[in-house]
């Protein structure tokens, strides 16, 4: 699953936000914060792992989860790229509107 589909689901978004503010959490900690059944949460964690949004490390008997920075960086890059594209596009729209305004003013002799 790609990163955008993975973060579209609210529980998975919540897990990421929790990991981002806590640094690391065990699978038990994460499950404890939701009303859903542990297997359901476990399934969400699997999706997040496969999308490489989180990393899992076995420490004694616990499964410890952390954010995987490269995936978060990738999300950030997409947002930056989209922002740059639309910023330039909306600037060009302004130029087109201003050119049209000038043309209208000239036509109506108000310029």
């Amino acid at each position, binding site marked *: 699953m790609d990163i*955008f589909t993975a973060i579209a689901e609210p529980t998975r978004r919540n897990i990421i936000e929790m990991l981002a503010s806590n640094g690391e959490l065990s699978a038990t900690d994460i499950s404890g914060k939701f009303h859903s059944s542990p297997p359901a949460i476990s399934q969400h964690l699997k999706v997040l792992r496969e999308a490489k949004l989180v990393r899992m490390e076995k420490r004694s008997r616990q499964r410890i989860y952390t954010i995987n920075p490269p995936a978060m960086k990738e999300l950030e890059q997409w947002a930056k790229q*989209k922002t740059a594209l639309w910023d330039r596009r909306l600037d060009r729209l302004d130029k*087109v*509107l201003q050119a*049209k305004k000038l043309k209208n003013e000239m036509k109506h002799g108000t310029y």
Partner: protein
Amino acid sequence: MEPIKEVTFERTYDAPLEEVWQAWTDPKMIKQWWGPDNVTIPECEVELRVGGKIYIVMEAGEAMGSYKGTRWPMLGKFTVVEPKSKLSYDVHAWTEGHNDNGETTIDQTTEMTLTEENGKTKLNLKATIHKTGPGAKMAVEGMQGGFTQQFAKLKKFLA
């Protein structure tokens, strides 16, 4: 830190609402600003109704160097059409010739709202990415690579 999948914009244009609406819905007008620079819009189709088609093709121009002739189409449907007020569409965009299994596909939604404010027009825009193919990132980087080449050329020219 929040995983981001959408970007939002707010602009105020010194133009009547009707003209901003027209610039967004008349293919002849869209072609003038959709861009980016040095990219042409050889095809643009707008069926302005809910369920109607939106189809825009961007084609890399001469200044894009090795990317010249690359076509980036986007095709989808309008989900909201409230004349002179609101537009929303769901589209997928891809790189032509590099999308046999949807590798370069990007699914996205764009929502645009116009409000009149003292003779000016306020535009609010939200662009959301829903899904990206495994090669989409590279395709976008290729597109940016084209722009970088173009900037390098300009720099050389100005030097």
